[in-house]
């Protein structure tokens, strides 16, 4: 039953100033519309240039639900195409990453393509002479996605031909990526390994919202972080040094006051971050030699500036979260209305001591793995919400914490860290990018 169709007003009506209708999480039609409108109209993370070092290197990814291939061309440029052969649709690349040599060759009938996607050769080519082949889309080779921006090695794409530009879309929010890259003494990050993958039986937006939900850790994670603190206090004996593991778990139990003062910053287009003044990542022990390396590269003042910026979670709308201080990016890949694949990547700070990479990997498996007790706490909440939202007693999700009636959309502001304003910010952007290419431009309903 199609209820929303291309009706921008009906879709806008799902987002009130401080409430959203449950259909945004549970209605399969809304999910289809997100794939058709929201994801193509937004800038989506594809991968990292360190995964494409040599000509012929490629990675596969999904943008929204569209399978794509990114490749490094012979001239060093990065290209992005839909992962299908123009002949009969066979996927050109079947592995997460690899090197294709000088060209892609379709395994079905051996059509081949240069690493910029253009058609290289077809066996028995003369069979196409005089058939009108040159007028077909197939003649252009692999269908290219032209709106691709590589920002400090982070590859983003917008599927829609027309729409908002990269700089306008992200604006000042790019400062989190900047900070993460600057934390390398060589100003460079590297992907060293595959991500941790974790299947979630819930809507993708629940994960995104949770990234700036600062009123849940001390409650939902009491079982994991709280127990970690308790066991350590009991077992520590005479040891002076808190193990890295306890340093990572402990801060999740910080009280409300901690999150209140640490603040949230919101940006236009649904981006925002927790941990403005300080964050749960602020008090990790120093790693020997690292500060000296940073000072050698950046000078005393700038090095302290970079390392003093310890943001917590930065949401890049619609579906990634970046943790600059521990070099992690989580990609919330929508599979179905109630199914989300979470891929959590760790970047190595090139040139920095091993200990920092060790810590980032540890954090990733503690928090983002299917074997992670913190992950178990969170997924339990998402699954219960996915079920609970099917009830008919109340069809609205309440996002009113610290709401002020004069809140402007699409602004930059720093606010109390327990506000739900970043969630409101995301839903304003959600309505905007869902409906911007529909007939009646949608505005979030009053």
């Amino acid at each position, binding site marked *: 039953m199609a209820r929303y169709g291309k009706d921008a007003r009906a879709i806008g009506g799902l987002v009130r100033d401080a409430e959203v209708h449950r259909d945004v999480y549970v209605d399969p039609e809304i999910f289809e519309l997100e794939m058709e409108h929201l994801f193509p109209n937004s800038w989506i993370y594809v991968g990292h240039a360190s995964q494409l070092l040599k000509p012929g290197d490629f990675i596969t990814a999904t943008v929204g639900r569209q399978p794509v291939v990114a490749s490094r061309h012979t001239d060093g440029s990065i290209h992005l195409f839909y992962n299908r052969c123009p002949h009969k649709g066979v996927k050109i690349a079947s592995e997460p990453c690899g090197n294709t040599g000088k060209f892609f060759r379709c395994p079905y009938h051996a059509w081949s393509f240069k690493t910029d996607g253009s058609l290289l050769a077809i066996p028995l080519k003369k069979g196409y002479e005089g058939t009108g082949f040159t007028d077909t889309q197939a003649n252009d080779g692999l269908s290219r996605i032209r709106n691709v921006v590589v920002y400090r090695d982070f590859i983003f794409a917008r599927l829609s031909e027309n729409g908002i530009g990269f700089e306008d879309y992200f604006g000042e929010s790019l400062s989190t990526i900047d900070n993460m890259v600057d934390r390398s003494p060589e100003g460079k990050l590297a992907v*060293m*390994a*595959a991500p*941790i*993958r*974790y*299947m*979630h*039986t819930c809507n993708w937006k629940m994960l995104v919202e949770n990234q700036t939900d600062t009123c849940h850790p001390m409650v*939902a994670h*009491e*079982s*994991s972080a*709280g*127990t*970690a603190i*308790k*066991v*350590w206090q009991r*077992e520590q004996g005479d040891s002076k040094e808190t*193990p890295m*593991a*306890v340093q990572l*778990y402990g801060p999740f139990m910080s009280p409300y006051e901690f999150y209140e003062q640490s603040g949230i910053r919101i940006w236009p287009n649904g981006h925002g971050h927790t941990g403005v003044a300080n964050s749960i990542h602020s008090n990790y022990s120093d790693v020997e030699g690292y500060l000296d390396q940073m000072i050698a590269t950046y000078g005393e003042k700038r090095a302290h500036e970079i390392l003093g910026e310890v943001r917590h979670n930065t949401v890049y709308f619609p579906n990634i979260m970046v943790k600059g201080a521990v070099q992690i990016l989580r990609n919330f890949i929508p599979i179905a209305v109630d199914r989300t*694949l*979470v*891929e959590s990547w*760790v970047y190595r700070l090139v040139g920095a001591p*091993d200990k920092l*990479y*060790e810590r980032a*990997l540890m954090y*990733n*498996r503690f928090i983002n*793995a*299917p*074997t992670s*007790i913190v*992950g*178990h*706490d969170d*997924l*339990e*909440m998402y699954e219960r919400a996915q079920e609970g939202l099917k009830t008919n007693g109340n069809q609205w999700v309440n996002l009113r914490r610290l709401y002020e009636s004069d809140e402007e959309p699409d602004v930059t502001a720093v606010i109390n860290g327990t506000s739900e304003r970043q969630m409101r910010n995301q839903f304003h952007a959600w309505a905007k990018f869902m409906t911007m290419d529909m007939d009646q431009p949608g505005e979030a309903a009053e």
Partner: protein
Amino acid sequence: MITEKTITDFIYREADLLDTMQWQAWLDLFHPEGRYWMPLEWQQQDPVLQPSLMYEDLLLMKVRIERLAGERTFSQKPKSRCHHLLQAPQILACDPAAGIFRAKTSYIYTETRGDALERFSGWASHDLVRVGDDLKIRLKRIDLVNFDAPFGNIQLFM
């Protein structure tokens, strides 16, 4: 005298303690420096500078076990249960003089919670050491056959 049968019996008993949820008795099988490792790569060598699903010492395993019984452990309401189906362990080393005892055991593991049931296959490798008259686990390594697939929650121990 530790024989191959001692090792095999040890491995069967270990699985049984997990299946019967005798968590503390299971933990007591570990050496104080023992580790539980679930790699994330094929034939992975390094648990520290390569990503793993789990690489836990006794402190972290204690946290897990206490958490399972916690009053506010919502992901254990209802509780999970598990079942190990083991092939006969393959003894890789049984050298009492050198103190080296190693075995590899093919398994099918089932974890269930509420109406959901998940099944996993792989190999468990045990590095054991003698402490007094007993064997203790120095390293239990779990290699899933599909380590690279995305899983839902795995809340107990394989």
